[in-house]
């Protein structure tokens, strides 16, 4: 591994390489530490944690904290475990992701292949909406959801996530479709294909990668959202993040750290799974949201 490869200018000796690998591995451990802490402690009885054994492997392995976090732990006033809130999050995420991705695809298509005077301004307006501090919309949105009869409901949360998800979906599809050859679209028009036919037959079949990027991004963001969930849900419609926070912050009774860790992993698992399976697309989405180029 010490040989300098032909296509890189920076050469490093074997001693240096040893140091580089050591540093990189140390940082791997650093990034893995909290995950390790969560997993290990979710599998041990409470007294092992209290005795200063947070970093040790369990002496007695147990799945009891997982069972408790899922179905019996006290969340707020009810001892329901996290299960109903996990379901809330799923019911919330699926439609919000699907609709915002579809709208983003249509918007991106219009903004690149059916350009009109002022389209860059329209896009700029949508894009800026991605970056505003959402504190700025909390008060009017609470009023609006009340007027719409959606206050404290899962459909209300779907609506909120949909509204503020459009900006990023549009960004992804616009930048992707901008690379797509306009000649193909023009040729299809000459053949008499209309707006939706071109979208369906020409644009959509080649949109796979960006759709995956967009879906993963929206899924991760909406699943992980806390601010909207905390502001616009009531006890029955709380998403997973809010319920987890209630579980951990609850001041009554014994602090069951092992149950908290099990709950935290449950809240992390869906996005973590997506990341493990399709990390490449997740990173592309992150990068497209920052270094658009």
């Amino acid at each position, binding site marked *: *591994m010490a040989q300098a490869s032909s296509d*890189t*200018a*920076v*050469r490093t000796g074997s001693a240096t390489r040893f140091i*580089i690998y050591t*540093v990189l591995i140390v*940082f*791997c451990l650093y*990034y*893995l*530490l*909290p995950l390790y802490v*969560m997993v290990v402690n979710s599998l041990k009885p409470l007294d092992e944690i209290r*005795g*200063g054994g*947070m*970093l040790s492997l369990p002496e007695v392995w147990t799945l009891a904290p997982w069972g408790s976090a899922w179905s019996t732990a006290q969340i707020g006033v009810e001892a329901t475990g996290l299960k109903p809130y996990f379901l809330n999050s799923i019911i919330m995420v699926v439609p919000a992701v699907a609709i915002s991705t579809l709208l983003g695809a249509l918007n991106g298509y*219009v*903004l*690149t*292949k*059916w*350009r009109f*005077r002022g389209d*860059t301004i329209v*896009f700029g*307006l949508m*894009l*800026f*909406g991605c*970056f*505003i*501090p959402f*504190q*700025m*919309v*909390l*008060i009017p*949105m609470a*009023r609006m959801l009340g007027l719409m009869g959606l206050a404290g409901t899962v459909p209300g949360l779907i609506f909120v996530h949909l*509204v503020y998800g459009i900006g990023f979906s549009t960004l992804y599809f616009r930048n992707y479709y901008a690379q797509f050859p306009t000649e193909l679209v023009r040729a299809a*028009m000459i053949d008499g294909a*209309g707006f939706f036919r071109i979208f369906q037959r020409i644009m959509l079949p080649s949109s796979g990668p960006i759709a995956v990027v967009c879906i993963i991004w929206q899924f991760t963001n909406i699943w*992980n959202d*806390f*601010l909207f969930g905390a502001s616009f849900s009531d006890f029955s419609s709380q998403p997973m993040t809010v319920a987890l*926070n209630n579980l*951990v912050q609850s001041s009554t009774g014994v602090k069951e*750290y092992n149950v908290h*860790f099990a709950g935290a*992993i449950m*809240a*992390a698992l869906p996005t973590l799974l997506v*990341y*493990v399976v399709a*990390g490449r697309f997740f990173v592309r989405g992150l*990068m497209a949201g*920052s*270094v658009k180029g």
Partner: protein
Amino acid sequence: MAQPASVGRRSGDWLRDALPKLVLSPSLAIVLIFVYGFIFFTFYLSFTDSRILPSYGLVGFENYDKLFRLRAWGIAVDNLIIFGGLYIVICCALGLALAILLDQKIRSEGFIRTIYLYPMALSFIVTGTAWKWFLDPGIGLEAVVHSWGWESFTFDWIKNRDMAIYTIVIAAVWQTSGFVMAMFLAGLRGIDNEVLKAAQIDGASNWALYRRIVIPQLRPAFMSAFVVLAHMAIKSYDLVIALTNGGPGRATELPATFMYSYTFTRNQMGIGAASAVIMLMTIAAIIVPYLWSELREKK
């Protein structure tokens, strides 16, 4: 913007011409109402005597005046400066260092990258929970070191008013530095190797190569990292709630938590709205020039 539709519109068919705009219009309407309309509404509320509920009696700049006299707001702003400054600097330094190390033809680079970046996929509530108990002196790191026999070891920052804000930095850096690393790595991969080879033939050391040639070329990556990190710092809310809930006392209050508590639990909606306006203006001052230049370059 000057040239019309990139696809010809020879047909005089009205519907055909209007259809694309019709398709775009619901999204545009949503954005205009729920982003810009709402911004305007909150902006307006910041000049009213709203308390528990919105109220429309104008009071001029009274809310802003009160806001800047409030000790809690002063603490929140000071904390944001400490937190934001350290967060941006440490993330950039660590991200750049790791990116440079990973760029040395590392075996299983993809695997290492995956590990560095996974925290970005997690909710701040999840990471907040993990760090909260890990940093807790009663059961976390301090207790662990005690159990190893080093009884005098103390690490109680999370319970300490003067140090608690740094625990937010620790957790936030952990979460995002891998992402910053990925941004710099992408920048490094875009640098022309021929220039480097030429410099090396001229006898430049590795250190000089990076300092003189590579790092200056990473300016765009630094810009992006700064904009992303600054706007994340200003919006930081979840992590503080999960890690310290603003405490101990008000030691980790940030503008985002201030806005929420004044608006929804202290029934000072006018002041809450004013603080949201300040947050928006700060973010706009960073984001607007950035978006402007990005959209311009595209032309």
